[in-house]
Each structure stands twice: as C-alpha cells, then as structure tokens.
C-alpha cells in the first residue's frame, strides 16, 4: 500500500488539481497491476471548489516496461480523454501528474468504475446468454473506438506514430529484435514472423486500436460493461486487430469455447461490432489477427521470462510465464495450417 507521506502528497495534488479548500484522501485497496505499477482505489473527500463532494477514484501510476510500444502516462492520458469524449464506456480521466515529483513516477487519476476485472469471477458468473450480451457490448465499444480514424485524428493525439506501407515489416523487425534479446533461439517464432510478414493484409483505413482489450482489461458488473481500461498499447492499426486480439485462444482463459475472449460467442461480438460500425466484420482478417496475437503473446512471454526481477515468487512467475510461450507456439503451428487450408 502507499506510504503515509505518499498519501499526503497525493491528497495535496488532488487539492491543487480541484482548486479545493481541503481534501482528505484514503486508500481503499491496491488494484491488480503489472509489476512496479502503483494502482490504487482511493476515496477523496473534497471540500470547496468545483469538485466538492465524495469521489471514488483510481490512481494509476506509470508501469515499468521494456515494451517499445507501451505509452507513457501523459500520452495514455491524452488518448483516454479523446476516447472518453468520443463516448467510449471508460472511466473519466480527471487529472494527470506527468513530472513524477509527487509519487516518484508519473500517474493519472480516473473515476472508479465499480465492477470486476477478475477473469475467473466474471466467467463463472456469466451464463452463456449473459456472456453473449457482454460480448455484444464489447463489440459495440470497439466499433465506437475505431470511429477515430487516422485521417481525422484529434490534435492532442498527434504524437501517435503514423504507420506507413511498411507497418508489417516494422512489426516483424521489432519481434526479431525481441527474440535476439532472449537467451534461446526460437525457430518456431521465426517461422511465424515470416508468415506474418507474408500474409499481412493491406490496411485501407487505420483507426485508433486498443490492442490489449481482453478479460482483465475491462470492468463488468455481470453482463453490464462498466468501463474499458488500460490504454497504454493504443496505436493506429487495422481495426480488426482488436477483434483478433480479443478472440485469440490465449486470452480465453478457461473457456476456449467462448470464442469472444472467453466471454461469449464470436457471433455476438461481430453482431455488436456491426451494429455500431455499420458494416460486416471481415472474419478472415480477424483470423489473421488471432494468429498475430498468438505470436505477440508468445514473444511477450519470452520477454517476461528474460527479466525475472523482484523476489523469488516473481522469478517463479516469470519462469512459468516463459513456458507459456510453448502454448503460443502450438497455437501458431495449428492455426497457420488451418488458415492456409481455409484460404486454399
């Protein structure tokens, strides 16, 4: 939990940000997060100023990552503001502390979204029908996010790199560099990277893509979608990448038959997407991105194993995560063969 002096500093920051006379802040609980990231649910009592009252908030610090695609807090905050303004169901981003002078690292404060992000709890709570309704809602939200197109990008997210015609080669190059940084040679992933490069579709319309929306990165209260979370992987991409990432086998946890991210059916996800986007989902392209998701997930597992960090428990967790790359390899080998057979 946060030390007392950190809570005092945080309370002072909220007082200044809200132009309040007084603030009292208490930490309710630590929220699930990656190693090294401050992530807390807090309650703020604010006296005076435009935010006077009691507020359930979330403090989200910048994480420790070697992922070259991960955004810094300030950039993620700007994207969250654009997404919220567009009408996406996501906790309102309130204030940003970009300097690191208050908690030692930059952080943002968001409104708290009540519900659960726990994959197992959510999966066990949802009937098949409820799961389908939640998958439908997730599809709708993705289509809403994808309305933000690269050619009409709001000025405050102009920092996002614009992909060119060589976008697939750039990803392949980054993955190869990631493999070079791991200890063991990886012929299967090398083979899959070649496949990715050879089969990448031409992207006619780049849109704002979440790139990490799956169980654990949205809040739900039963079948009700309460908020999309975690925007640090957002980039201009093929919109179908989000559907592929969500539907990829590696993200379905214990319910692989629920093809929409272990939540509901693929059909429900596609229906929800179509209802907002106004056009059909390109299933073949989603399948391509499912394979790319296995590749990305597998390489990320190897990267995690390569930096065990922390204590013995974290070292063990890193080692076991590294071994999950074998599941991604197996998925790649079977699904690439199936993809080829379907396209023949």
């Amino acid at each position, binding site marked *: 939990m946060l030390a007392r002096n950190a809570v005092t500093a945080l309370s002072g920051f909220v007082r200044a940000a809200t132009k309040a006379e007084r603030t009292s802040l208490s930490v309710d609980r630590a929220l699930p997060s990656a190693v090294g990231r401050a992530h807390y649910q807090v309650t703020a009592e604010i006296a005076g100023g435009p935010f006077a009252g009691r507020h359930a908030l979330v403090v989200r610090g910048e994480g420790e990552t070697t992922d070259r695609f991960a955004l810094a807090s300030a950039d993620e905050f700007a994207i969250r503001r654009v997404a919220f303004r567009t009408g996406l169901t996501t906790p309102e981003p309130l204030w940003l502390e970009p300097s690191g002078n208050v908690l030692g690292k930059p952080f943002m404060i968001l409104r708290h979204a009540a519900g659960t992000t726990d994959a197992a709890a959510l999966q066990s709570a949802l009937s098949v029908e409820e799961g389908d309704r939640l998958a439908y809602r997730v599809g709708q939200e993705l289509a809403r996010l994808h309305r933000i197109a690269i050619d009409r990008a709001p000025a405050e997210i102009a920092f996002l790199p614009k992909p060119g015609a060589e976008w697939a080669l750039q990803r392949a190059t980054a993955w*190869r560099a990631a*493999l070079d940084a791991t200890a*063991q*040679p*990886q*012929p*299967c992933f*090398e*083979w899959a*990277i*070649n496949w990715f490069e050879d089969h990448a579709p031409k992207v006619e319309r780049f849109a704002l893509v979440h790139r990490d929306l799956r169980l654990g990165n949205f809040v739900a209260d039963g079948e009700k979608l309460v908020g999309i979370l975690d925007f640090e992987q957002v980039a201009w991409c093929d919109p179908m990448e989000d559907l592929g990432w969500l539907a990829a086998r590696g993200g379905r946890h214990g319910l*692989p*038959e629920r093809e929409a991210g272990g939540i509901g059916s693929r059909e429900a996800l596609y229906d929800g997407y179509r209802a907002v986007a106004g056009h059909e989902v390109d299933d073949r392209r989603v*399948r391509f991105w499912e394979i790319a998701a296995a590749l990305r997930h597998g390489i990320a597992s190897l990267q995690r194993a390569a930096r065990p960090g922390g204590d013995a*428990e974290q070292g*063990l*967790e890193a*080692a*076991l995560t590294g*071994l*999950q790359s*074998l*599941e991604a*390899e*197996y*998925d790649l*080998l*079977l*699904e690439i*063969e*199936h993809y080829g057979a379907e396209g023949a």
Partner: protein
Amino acid sequence: MALLQTTADELLQRAIETLRARILPHAAGTPDHEAALAALRALAIAHAELASDPAIIGREVAEIEALLGQSFQGDAVAAKRALAQAVRVRSLPSDGPGEVRLRDHLLKATANRLRLTNPKYMTRRQRRAESSY
C-alpha cells in the same frame, strides 16, 4: 544408478504430494494460494522433465541436421540456433515437401516440450479440433 538412496524423481514426487495435501488446503483464500500453486506447477514440470525420454534431444538434432544438411555433433543448442537463423534468412523451402518437413519438425519439437509443461493443453486442443477451428 543414482548417487542417493532416494532418487530425484521420488523426492520431487513426494514434495509435490506434500505440497498438494498439506500446504495447498491451508493456503486457499489467502495471498499465498497463487504462490503455492505456482510452486506446485514448477515442481510438476521439473518432475515431468526428469521422467522424459532422454533420446528426444538426439532425435531433434538429427531432424535439424536432415533439414539443414549439416552436422552438429549432438550440440542441440547450436542446431536450434542454426535452424532459427536459416528460417529467418529464408534459406529453407517456403513450400512443398521441404516446408512440410520443417513444419513437422517444429510441431514435434513444440509438442515434446508442451507435453512436459501443460499436457492438458494439447489434449483440449485436439479434442476441440475435431469439432471446429
């Protein structure tokens, strides 16, 4: 013949049984539960690796030697590194029987390891492949 009266295999098996019977039930619902499960899983993987067929590595090296037309004199890491490099620079056939042989090798090599780390994963996938994608 093992140096110790009780073999590494037996010791690991007993550690797994003890952890499962005596530690896990008490850890349920506590912050230690995930850690205990992870430790149990690690021991089970180590146990499976000890019990695995030692000839597997030799067979894999032989397959790579056949694919690359080069001898590695039993050095599995050098063989795997050379294969990874050959795939990266696309010096192996990208279609036809050569490509099938490469894919078969990759599938076997992955399955050999997955059988140790998560054997249920392959079973579940195979069962599912009979009905759908």
